[in-house]
């Protein structure tokens, strides 16, 4: 690991020492003296990880969801999808690199995999537009999902965006229409759709890939109607408090963690992360995700398509938290 968030920092020295000792023991012949020390440090690191990551605040979870080393859509695709063929373009205007999609196999089942894609190097981040899609991205996603429906293939989506791109071209080409059309049309596709929030679920841009039969979140991912920063800027413009305090306050107010949304019954399940987060063991994380997908598909593949979309509608329809007092 090369990037440590502030609250991860107590681990930095320990993890670096463990890594150094491991390197020594494989390269040199000193393995006879080192294992005890490695074990001792590993035990300490394990305890520290569980202490740090079991008690993350909502703002810390937000930072985890955006961790620069967190695995992205293509990382998971590389780890769990066999024979992946990426498919490009919306057939209307362009190909949006901020959303990737294609067909491949997970546990032997051929399916479509579509997700937001962030970049890791500065060059790649710019190429991926920081994971912020233009209308073309949503239209490409819908094109692939309709293809999936024609060929009766399930769809998995990976959600990881701070939001739809706010730009002139995006507005000119109908950002709102593209998102709205996805929400509408995906709700009626007669194939199983599983949506998984792997990092940041940012507002409408995330929602455009979220409609389906199952909605899961990774343990340290977030999903929110607005970013904590955006919320804080609207609500607490004045006042001399340090800004991050307001971000923390906003994150708490918005209730944007997997635990919050599971309690609200807005999501179906939480996929737990390896100790210290997905980025500390991407392979283990990928395997858990693949397991969730196959387990959900076992049920959904057996469901009659008409029943499937009726159930999908019922699930969305009941989200509200309302009371009706009766005529007065």
């Amino acid at each position, binding site marked *: 690991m090369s990037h440590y968030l502030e609250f991860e920092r107590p681990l930095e020295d320990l993890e670096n020492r463990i890594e150094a000792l491991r390197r020594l023991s494989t390269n040199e012949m000193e393995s006879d003296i080192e294992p005890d020390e490695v074990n001792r440090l590993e035990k300490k690191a394990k305890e520290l990880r569980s202490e740090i990551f079991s008690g993350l605040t909502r703002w810390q979870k937000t930072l985890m969801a955006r961790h620069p080393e967190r695995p992205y859509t293509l990382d998971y695709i590389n780890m769990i999808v066999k024979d992946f063929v990426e498919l490009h373009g919306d057939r209307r205007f362009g190909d949006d690199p901020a959303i990737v999609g294609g067909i491949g196999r997970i546990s032997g089942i051929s399916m479509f995999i579509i997700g937001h894609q962030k970049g890791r190097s500065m060059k790649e981040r710019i190429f991926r537009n920081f994971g912020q899609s233009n209308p073309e991205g949503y239209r490409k996603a819908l094109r692939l999902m309709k293809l999936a429906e024609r060929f009766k293939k399930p769809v998995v989506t990976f959600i990881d965006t701070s939001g*739809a*791109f*706010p*730009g*002139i071209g*995006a*507005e*000119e*080409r*109908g*950002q*709102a*229409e593209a*998102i*709205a*059309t996805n*929400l*509408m*049309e995906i*709700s*009626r596709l007669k194939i199983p759709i599983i949506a998984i929030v792997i990092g940041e679920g940012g*507002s*409408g841009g995330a*929602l455009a890939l*979220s*409609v389906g039969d199952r909605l899961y979140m990774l343990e340290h991912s977030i*999903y*929110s*109607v*607005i970013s904590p920063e955006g*919320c804080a800027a*609207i*609500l*607490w413009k004045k006042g001399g408090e340090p800004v991050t305090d307001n971000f923390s306050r906003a994150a708490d*107010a*918005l*209730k*944007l963690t997997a635990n919050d*949304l599971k309690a*609200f019954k*807005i999501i179906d399940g939480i996929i737990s992360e390896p100790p210290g987060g997905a980025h500390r063991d991407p392979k283990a994380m990928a395997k858990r995700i693949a397991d969730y997908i196959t387990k959900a598909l076992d049920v959904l593949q057996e469901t009659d398509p008409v029943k499937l979309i009726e159930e*999908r*509608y019922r699930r*969305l*329809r009941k*989200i*509200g*938290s*309302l*009371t*009706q*007092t*009766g*005529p*007065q």
Partner: protein
Amino acid sequence: MGWFKKTKEIAANRKVNIPEGLWIKCDSCKEIIYKKEIQRNLQVCPKCNYHFRISSLERINLITDEGTFIEIDSDLTTTNPLNFSDTISYKDRLEINKKKTSLKEAAIYGDATINGRAVSLAVLEFSFMGGSMGAVVGEKIARATERALDKGIPLITISSSGGARMQEGMFSLMQMAKVSAAIARLKETDTLYVSILADPTFGGVTASFAMLGDVIIAEPKSLIGFAGPRVIERTIKQQLPKDFQRAEFLLEHGMIDLIVGRKELKNTIHRLIELFMPYKQEEGSFP
């Protein structure tokens, strides 16, 4: 009664930002205009055709036959699931907005007729928390849509909204998916949906039911978009083109069907309803 009417009028005026006094300055052309002239003109500037913001009730009166609108489910309220609180609690904010607007929420829906034709009508109220869509607004739009579907009558919505309601967090965001899914079912039938966009319509409302009309109509010069202009400016660090996100801009880019002024709105909707009517229900003989 006369007194009551007068205070109502004043309240309505304050809602559309018209200062006290006999004369007002138009927000768009900056001309000073005699206030009564604007009132007589359906709150439209006689000099530049700017459409001042009007209340949801005024909009209902504008397009429906007198006395035909019957509100449904006015008693729907949120349970405030996030227990949201900023400078004041969300509960208190709702109370303040209820008092300010004499309405219970940012949407009102019900049955009405337009030149004799039955419709399911839902209207957003911008002066109630910026017309934002929380669970109540989403539920009302969904119910209005299901009612149109069940009765086979056209769905008409009039939007003016800042978008999702932050104070309801993910419950608010999910309303976009909920109402869009309801409209998806309507679109499997031959039930017409006319969406009218008024100044301003943004965010989660534009990115759900407002842009899903079979026919989309905007009021002249109204601001319509996904992201707000200031957010865009801050992101791209560029000046925005003139008339960016105005109704005329959207028409030019193929995002809406028509721009219709207030005076023509009712008759335009009625004409569309008649023209889209399934053949068997059409009155008169085939030409």
